[in-house]
C-alpha cells in the first residue's frame, strides 16, 4: 500500500492513512490491483492510524480505521479476498529505553483493534520491540476474536533494532497464542533465510514471510530485486513451514502476481520445532536441554538487607543482585519480592521491568499470589517461568490458566492439600496430576518443571532419598523437566556448602534440569559446570574451559598496614578500603570511623574536584570506595542490631518527561556515600509521586534533576506542588521542604525563579546543600 501511495504521488497532510477519508476511491483501486494480481488478503491502509501519529491531523482513529476497512472491503466485493486490520508500531519507544509505558501502549492498540472490528484478520507488523508487540497481541486477544498474525522486522544481524532475536520472537509470540508469526519488511527474501530458519526451530506455528523487494537505497527508495527473482526466493523458504507469503516495501502488484504464479501448485509443508523447551528474554534464549542454573538471590526470605531494600524502594540494590548473579554464572533468575510491608503486585511489576532494563537473563516470576503472578506475566517481555503451581485444586485452577494465557513455563511443586507426601510415590502422583491438568489446558508437558521439594536432611535423614527418587521418576516416566531448590538440604548443619554441592551433584545425576542455587558460591556453580562436562553435555568442555581457564584466584585484599583508610578512599582502592574498615571495626567505634576517617577523606576528594585537580569519574570512584566501607559498617551494625548509619533521608528524582538520569544517579551515589539515605524515585517522575513520598516518609529534602529546556517546566510544576501541599508546610504556611535542583541547561537565576532553595552546579554541590540542611 505504501508503495502504491508513494508512486501515485497522492498528496496528504500528516499521514498517508488520512487518504482513507480524502481519497477512498484511490485506496480502493490500489487494493483492487493487488486482488487482481492474486492477493488473498489485503492489508487495509491503517498501519499508522494510531492516536499518537494522528494527533493534530483532525481525524480520529475510529474514522480513519473504519474508512480504511471499508475501502478494502469495497475492493474485495465479489471475491474471496480477506481484509486485514493492519497495525504498525506506535512510533514512540516503550520503557525502559523510551517513556511510553507498557500499559499505555496497550491502550493505543486497544483503540485500534476496537475501531477495526469489521476486519477479517488482525495483522501486527514491522515491530522491532518485543515488548510493544506483546502489548499489541494482548490488546488483540483481549478485545477481539479475530485471528492474529504477528511479524517483526529484522536487520542483517538477525536481530531487530532493539536487539530482539528471531528465536525469542518465535517463542514469545507462540506462547501468547498468535495464529501465525514471521517476518516482514527488513530485507529482501534472498536474505531472510537465516531469520526464518531460526524461527522455525522454536515454533510449530505457520510462518509468514512478507519481504521487501530487496534492499532500498536508504535515500532514493529504489529496490533491487525484480518480481520473478522475488517469487523464487520466497518459494525457496517454503520448506521452513511458511504458509503466508506476501510483499512489503517496493512490492507492486507485479510482485504479487509473480508470487502467486510461483506458489500456485505448492502446498503447505508443516515444519515441527526442533528445540527443547526454552525460556527467553527479548535477546537471550535459554534452552533447557541440560542443567541450567537459576539464581535464587532475589528473594527477601531470611535477608535483612533485601527486606530493607524492598521497604525503601531501593531498586538499585535488587539490580546489583541480578547483575552479580549473572556474573557468577546464573542463566536464569528467580524474582521474589513478597513482603508483608509492601504492595507485592506493584513491586513485582516494577522490579521485573527494572531488571529487564539492564539484564538479559530470562526471569522466573515467583509468588504465592495469582494476582502477583498475572501482573508479572503481563509486565514481562519474553517467555518467563512461573514459580509456582502445586497440586492443590485452588492453585491448579488459578495458576495454570495464567500460564496458558501468557505462554509461560511453570514450576510444579509436589505438594497439595495434604502437605508434602513423605514418599517418592506420593510426590510422583501429585506431579502426574499437575502435568495432566496442564496438558488438558493445552500446556506442553515439557513446559512444566516439576520440583520434588528438598527437605532438611538434619531433620529427616531419609527424606533426601525420597526427593531424589521422585525426581528420577518424574524425569524418566513423565518426560517433564525438573527443578529443585537446593540450599534447604543443609539447614542446621555445619559446612553447609559441602552438603549443598554434594546434594546438587547427586540430584543432577538423577536428572535435575534446573537447580535453584546461589550462583555466587563458586562450589555450586562449579558443580553444575563440571557435571555438564562429565555428562557429555558441554561438548569438548568448551564452556568449562572458557569459565575456568585463566582463573588465577584473585588475591584476597589485605588490610595493608602501609595504606591508611583515608588514602585508600582518596585513591579509589575499593577492596583494600573495605578490608581496612573491617579491621578497624574490631577496635574502633563505627561512627568514629565514619566521622573521623571516611567523611574527611571524601571532603578532600571533593575539594580537589572543585579545584579541577581530579576528574568526575575519580570523584565517583572515591565515593564508591567510601560506600564499600559504609557497607562493611552497615553490616556490622545490622549484626549487632544497632542503629543505622544515616544522616537523614533525601528524595532524588529526574522530573516528568525526562529520561536522561545519569546526572541524578551521580548525585545519588555521592549522597549515599556521604551517609545520607537516598530515596531514588527514578526518572520520568510524576510530581505527585514526589509529594506522596515526601509525605509518607516524612522527608524534607528533595533533589530534582532536568536535562532539557523542555522538561524544566516539569521541575517548576514539581516544586509548585511541593510548596502547595499542606502536609509539607509548617504551621505558618512556610514550606518544610528544602529543594535542590540541577541539570545541564539550568541556571542559578532560573532555579531561584522557579522556587528552589539550592542550585547545584554539580554533584558535589548537592552534598554541600545536604550538609547545610541535614548536617
Amino acid at each position: 500500500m505504501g508503495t502504491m501511495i508513494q508512486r501515485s504521488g497522492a498528496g496528504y497532510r500528516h499521514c498517508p492513512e488520512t487518504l482513507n477519508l480524502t481519497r477512498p476511491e484511490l485506496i480502493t483501486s490500489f487494493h483492487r490491483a493487488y486482488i487482481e494480481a492474486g492477493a488473498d488478503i489485503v492489508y487495509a491502509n491503517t498501519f499508522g492510524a494510531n492516536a499518537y501519529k494522528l494527533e493534530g491531523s483532525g481525524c480520529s482513529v475510529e474514522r480513519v480505521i473504519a474508512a480504511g476497512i471499508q475501502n478494502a472491503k469495497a475492493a474485495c466485493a465479489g471475491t474471496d479476498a480477506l481484509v486485514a486490520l493492519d497495525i504498525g508500531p506506535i512510533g514512540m519507544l516503550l520503557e525502559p529505553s523510551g517513556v511510553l509505558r507498557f500499559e499505555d501502549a496497550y491502550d493505543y492498540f486497544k483503540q485500534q483493534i476496537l475501531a477495526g472490528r469489521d476486519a477479517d484478520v488482525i495483522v501486527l507488523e514491522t515491530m522491532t520491540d518485543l515488548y510493544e508487540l506483546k502489548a499489541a497481541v494482548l490488546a488483540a486477544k483481549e478485545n477481539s476474536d479475530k485471528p492474529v498474525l504477528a511479524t517483526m522486522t529484522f536487520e542483517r544481524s538477525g536481530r531487530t533494532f532493539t536487539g530482539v532475536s528471531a528465536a525469542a520472537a518465535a517463542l514469545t509470540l507462540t506462547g501468547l497464542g498468535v495464529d501465525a508469526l514471521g517476518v516482514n519488511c527488513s530485507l529482501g527474501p534472498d536474505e531472510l533465510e537465516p531469520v526464518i530458519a531460526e524461527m522455525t526451530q522454536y515454533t510449530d506455528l505457520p510462518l509468514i514471510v512478507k519481504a521487501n523487494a530487496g534492499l532500498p537505497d536508504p535515500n532514493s527508495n529504489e529496490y533491487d530485486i525484480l518480481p520473478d527473482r522475488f517469487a523464487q526466493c520466497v518459494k525457496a523458504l517454503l520448506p521452513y513451514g511458511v504458509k503466508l507469503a506476501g510483499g512489503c516495501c517496493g512490492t507492486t502488484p507485479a510482485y504479487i502476481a509473480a508470487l502467486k504464479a510461483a506458489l500456485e501448485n505448492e502446498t503447505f509443508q508443516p515444519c515441527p520445532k526442533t528445540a527443547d523447551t526454552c525460556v527467553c528474554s527479548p535477546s537471550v534464549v535459554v534452552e533447557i536441554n541440560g542443567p541450567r542454573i537459576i539464581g535464587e538471590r532475589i528473594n527477601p526470605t531470611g535477608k535483612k538487607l533485601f527486606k530493607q531494600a524492598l521497604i525503601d524502594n531501593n531498586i538499585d540494590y535488587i539490580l546489583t543482585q541480578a547483575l552479580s548473579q549473572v556474573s557468577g554464572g546464573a542463566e536464569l533468575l528467580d524474582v521474589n519480592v513478597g513482603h508483608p510491608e509492601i504492595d507485592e503486585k506493584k513491586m513485582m511489576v516494577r522490579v521485573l521491568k527494572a531488571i529487564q532494563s539492564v539484564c538479559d537473563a530470562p526471569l522466573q516470576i515467583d509468588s504465592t499470589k495469582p494476582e502477583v503472578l498475572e501482573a508479572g506475566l503481563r509486565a514481562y517481555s519474553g517467555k518467563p517461568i512461573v514459580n509456582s503451581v502445586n497440586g492443590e485444586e485452588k492453585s491448579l485452577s488459578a495458576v495454570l490458566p495464567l500460564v496458558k494465557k501468557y505462554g509461560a513455563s511453570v514450576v510444579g511443586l509436589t505438594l497439595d492439600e495434604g502437605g508434602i507426601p513423605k514418599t517418592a510415590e506420593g510426590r510422583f502422583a501429585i506431579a502426574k496430576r499437575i502435568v495432566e491438568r496442564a496438558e488438558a489446558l493445552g500446556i506442553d508437558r515439557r513446559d512444566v518443571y516439576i520440583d520434588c521439594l528438598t527437605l532438611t536432611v538434619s531433620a529427616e535423614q531419609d527424606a533426601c532419598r525420597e526427593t531424589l527418587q521422585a525426581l528420577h521418576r518424574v524425569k524418566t516416566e513423565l518426560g517433564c523437566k525438573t527443578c529443585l531448590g537446593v540450599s534447604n538440604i543443609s539447614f542446621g548443619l555445619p559446612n553447609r556448602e559441602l552438603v549443598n554441592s554434594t546434594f546438587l551433584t547427586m540430584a543432577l545425576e538423577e536428572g535435575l534440569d534446573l537447580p535453584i542455587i546461589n550462583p555466587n558460591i563458586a562450589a555450586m556453580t562449579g558443580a553444575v559446570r563440571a557435571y555438564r562436562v562429565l555428562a557429555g553435555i558441554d561438548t569438548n568442555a568448551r564452556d568449562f574451559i572458557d569459565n575456568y581457564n585463566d582463573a588465577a584466584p584473585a588475591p584476597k585484599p589485605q588490610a595493608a598496614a602501609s595504606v591508611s583508610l583515608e588514602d585508600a578512599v582518596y585513591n579509589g582502592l575499593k577492596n583494600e578500603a573495605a578490608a581496612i574498615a573491617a579491621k578497624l571495626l574490631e577496635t574502633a567505634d563505627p561512627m568514629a570511623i565514619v566521622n573521623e576517617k571516611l567523611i574527611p577523606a571524601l571532603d578532600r576528594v571533593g575539594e580537589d574536584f572543585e579545584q579541577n585537580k581530579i576528574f568526575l569519574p575519580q570523584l565517583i570512584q572515591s565515593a564508591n570506595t567510601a560506600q564499600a566501607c559504609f557497607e562493611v559498617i552497615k553490616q556490622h551494625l545490622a549484626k549487632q542490631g544497632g542503629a543505622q548509619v544515616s544522616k537523614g533521608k533525601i528524595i532524588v528524582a529526574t522530573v516528568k518527561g525526562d529520561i536522561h538520569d545519569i546526572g541524578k544517579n551521580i548525585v545519588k551515589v555521592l549522597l549515599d556515600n556521604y551517609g545520607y539515605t537516598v530515596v531514588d524515585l527514578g526518572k520520568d517522575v510524576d510530581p505527585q509521586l514526589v509529594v506522596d513520598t515526601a509525605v509518607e516518609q516524612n522527608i524534607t529534602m528533595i533533589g530534582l534533576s532536568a536535562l532539557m529546556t523542555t522538561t524544566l517546566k516539569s521541575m517548576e510544576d514539581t516544586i509548585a506542588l511541593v510548596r502547595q501541599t499542606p502536609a509539607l508546610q509548617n504551621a505558618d504556611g512556610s514550606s518544610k521542604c528544602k529543594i535542590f535542583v540541577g541539570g545541564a541547561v539550568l541556571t542559578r537565576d532560573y532555579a531561584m525563579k522557579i522556587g528552589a532553595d539550592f542550585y547545584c552546579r554539580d554533584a558535589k554541590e548537592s552534598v554541600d546543600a545536604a550538609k547545610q540542611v541535614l548536617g
Partner: protein
Amino acid sequence: MNIPDRIDRREAVRYMGGAGVMMNADMERLMDGCEQELLRVMQPKYLYQIVDLPQEALLVGGDIRRHLKGCRQAVLFCATLGAAVDRLLRVAQVRDMARAVVLDSMASVAIEQVCRQADESIAAQLPGRFLTFRYSPGYGDYPIELQKTFLRLLDAPRKIGLTVSDSCLLVPAKSVTAIAGISDVPVERQRRGCAVCNLRDTCQYRKNGDHCGF
C-alpha cells in the same frame, strides 16, 4: 556505515569537564576499557534526504533562516548509535558509576564522530556544491519540537529505529537530528559557537574565558 577506529579521547575529556586535569594511568585504563566496549556495542546508522527550500515546516525562527540564507536546497539528517548503547549506559549506571560517566562522555563524542563521517559521505555525493555546518533543532531559537518533523520526514523510526519522546528527547539517547544548507558557493564553515549553545549560561569553559571548540 563504518564504525570509527578510535574515539577521540581529548574530546571525551572535555565532555567530562576535565579541562586542565592531568590524566593518570588509572583514568587511561578506564577509558581504554570503555572505548573498546563502546566500539563493540555501537551500531551507528544515519539517514538523509535532500529537500528543496524554502519549506515553511522547516524554517521556524530567525536563526535557521540566517543559517540557510542563499541555499536553495538542504540536507535533512539524522543519526544514532543505536539502542545497545543506551542499554550499556544503563547497566554501567548500576554497576559502576565512574565507568558510566566515562562511557556517557565517550558515546557523546562517538555520535559526533559518526555525524562528521556522514557529513563527508554526503558532501562527496554533492560535487561542486558546499554544505553549511549541521544545525540542530534546539540550537538558538530553532525549536526542539521540530525533531518530530525531521524524524517523520526521514521515516527514521522504521528505517533506523530512531524515535522521539513527547518531551522531545531522542530515543536512543545518543542520536542527532540536523539540517545543513546546500550552497552553490563556498560557505564559511564558521564554528557553531556559544551563541547557539544551550549550555552557554552554565558552561565551565565559557566562565573561564575559554571555548569548548564546538
